[in-house]
């Protein structure tokens, strides 16, 4: 192609060409949430298990690192990791619910149902909304219990 003539050829389907919709979003979020759970979630779970097995002191050190350091003068490192730990835990909660609801949607799609444009868009939107809602509800419950 020389350059300036209008291109009437069909364009190759690709991310920059298609307008983003909920079905595309829920697809990539399934991968992102799954990989987050697989690497960050499973890693944190093994660290937590190891801390339980290693005894009260190691467990207290784990909690002081990722949640709350009870010592009167908190080191700069723990000030940062206390905030980072909460961000990661909220993120993992969202990733869990997003991946769970999206996975349930995949079970329905596996039966051959839910591919019509309207219902596909509807349930993709429902999955994303339910993931955010369940995350908010879980943390509101945790904070209400803590008070």
């Amino acid at each position, binding site marked *: 192609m020389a350059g300036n003539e209008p291109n009437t050829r069909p364009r190759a389907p690709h991310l920059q060409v298609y307008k983003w919709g909920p079905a595309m979003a829920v697809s990539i979020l399934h991968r992102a949430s799954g990989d987050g759970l697989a690497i960050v979630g499973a890693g944190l779970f093994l660290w937590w298990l190891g801390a339980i097995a290693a005894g009260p002191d*190691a467990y207290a050190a784990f909690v002081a690192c990722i949640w709350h350091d009870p010592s009167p003068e908190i080191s700069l490192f723990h000030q940062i990791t206390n905030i980072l730990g909460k961000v990661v835990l909220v993120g993992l909660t969202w990733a869990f619910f997003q991946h769970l609801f999206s996975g349930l949607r995949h079970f329905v799609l596996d039966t051959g149902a839910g591919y019509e444009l309207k219902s596909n868009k509807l349930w993709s939107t429902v999955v994303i909304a339910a993931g955010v809602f369940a995350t908010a509800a879980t943390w509101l419950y945790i904070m209400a219990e803590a008070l």
Partner: protein
Amino acid sequence: MGDGTHLGKVRGLGSSGHGSQHWLQQRLTALGNILLVGFFVVSLIRLPLGDHAAVLRWAANPMVALALILMVVSVFWHLRLGLTVLIEDYVHGPMLLLATVLLNFYAIGGAAYGIFTIARIALAPVVAGPGGM
């Protein structure tokens, strides 16, 4: 599926060499994860997580320890399948082999560490003294 050779039809494996095995295992471990991770998340929300003795008592309960070991198997199996697809999509050339080997180290090593740790919690309650993990 398709018009493959007679031998291919008999074996039913297709060009991947392992047929629908990956797909089916992903679904079956997903079902396991719904039950086992569901139980785990509800437990986490209800446990006093700052209290080591309470968490240890919970994890040392035989039924809980068994469920946790089954969860480790189901989760690490499922994450290996998922990360395999991620690697196949984004990593090419000689790095593909390296990434796949590292993934297997992570999945098998992580699962072994998890199972061993749960067994240690359930079978040998921690006593004060040197050592630890």
